[in-house]
């Protein structure tokens, strides 16, 4: 092989390495987690969906492969203490009614869902318990206690495929979420789809664009060293495109959460994942 050919091969290899998701396989403490599957039928442009884990650097990927190394687990530990902590006027803790947090296995993949005509997320359910049954102050959407608790409850479903209902009662919310996903907003005039559907796998300056899957939320981000809610992430995206973000926990983000969850149907819950 002459030198010129060698160089062109090298360039080609370099180009592909930055151009798409990698082919690594994720296993947490020996238990394999699916990071790639066929896209659900309602997605028209994308054939295969990938977990955001596949777009991260190998060092970041390694952090998620071992629960001890996963910094998100520190917050899960805090939530275990919170679970048993009595709060509010009724003198109750989570554990007073829900004996074992393990009983919530299977909840995360089905959320958000419609209850009595309203779209309900895990944060809504936790705060409903706190205000109605514990007589306690509701937690703020993206603050430490809330993200820790959603991570603990989500962790019980790790490895289970996302499976949200998008028909029946949920259909109007799903349609609204879909519309938001494809609507260009902000000074940069961009929609979610411009990055996460049309250009996933390419670099946006120093960042490797993923498909914007939310199966790993709440996720530990290296940039702020804490757990981040999906709504907090949506807000970050909207700020980046110089749009005025919707409110965390508002109708828009809840609908978007449902739509995004449905785009990840078949991928497994990775909570708490590690991202950059």
């Amino acid at each position, binding site marked *: 092989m002459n030198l010129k050919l060698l160089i062109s091969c090298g360039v080609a290899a370099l180009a592909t390495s930055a151009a798409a998701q990698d082919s690594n396989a994720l296993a947490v403490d020996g238990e394999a987690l699916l990071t790639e599957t066929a896209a659900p039928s309602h997605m028209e442009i994308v054939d295969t969906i990938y977990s955001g884990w596949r777009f991260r650097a190998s060092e970041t990927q390694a952090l998620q492969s071992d629960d*001890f*190394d996963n*910094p998100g*687990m*520190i917050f899960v*530990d*805090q939530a275990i203490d919170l679970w048993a902590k009595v709060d509010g006027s009724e003198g109750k803790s989570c554990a007073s009614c829900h004996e074992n947090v393990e009983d919530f296995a299977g909840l995360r993949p089905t959320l958000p869902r419609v209850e009595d005509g309203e779209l309900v997320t895990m944060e809504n359910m936790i705060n409903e318990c706190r205000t109605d049954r514990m007589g306690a102050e509701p937690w703020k959407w993206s603050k430490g206690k809330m993200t820790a608790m959603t991570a603990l409850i989500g962790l019980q479903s790790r490895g289970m495929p996302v499976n949200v209902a998008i028909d029946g009662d949920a259909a109007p919310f799903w349609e609204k979420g879909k519309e938001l996903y494809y609507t260009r907003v902000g000074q940069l005039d961009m929609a979610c789809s411009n990055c996460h559907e049309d250009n996933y796998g390419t670099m946006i300056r120093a960042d490797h664009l993923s498909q914007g899957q939310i199966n790993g939320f709440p996720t530990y981000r290296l940039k702020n*060293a804490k757990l981040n809610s999906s709504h907090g992430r949506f807000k970050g995206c909207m700020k980046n495109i110089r749009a005025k973000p919707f409110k965390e926990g508002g109708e828009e983000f809840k609908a978007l959460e449902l739509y995004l969850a449905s785009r990840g149907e078949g991928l497994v819950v990775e909570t708490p994942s590690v991202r950059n």
Partner: protein
Amino acid sequence: MAKDVKPRVKVPKKASAGETITIKTLISHKMESGQRKDGDGNAIPRSIINRFTADFNDQNVIDVTLEPAISTNPYFQFEAVVPESGEFKFTWYDDDGSVYDTSKKIEVS
């Protein structure tokens, strides 16, 4: 005592004699450097873990001095040779005088 301090340690349960094992330790601690200022411009007092030790059957394995530049939730990973069954004891010393410890047994066959 600083808030939410919780030590975590990972030691293999079993090993063969003379084997080199990897030990991972982490303690959740805010590691306030003393360099930062609060909203009113007053310095936030330093509050860090200043020393970490690991002992095996009362014999010291590692003794670390920590400085203020070490980030939150200090993590140590190190290797040790285990000649016999016994117990690892890990101790963290806080600036405020608190001492946190935890221990793990290991069985050598």
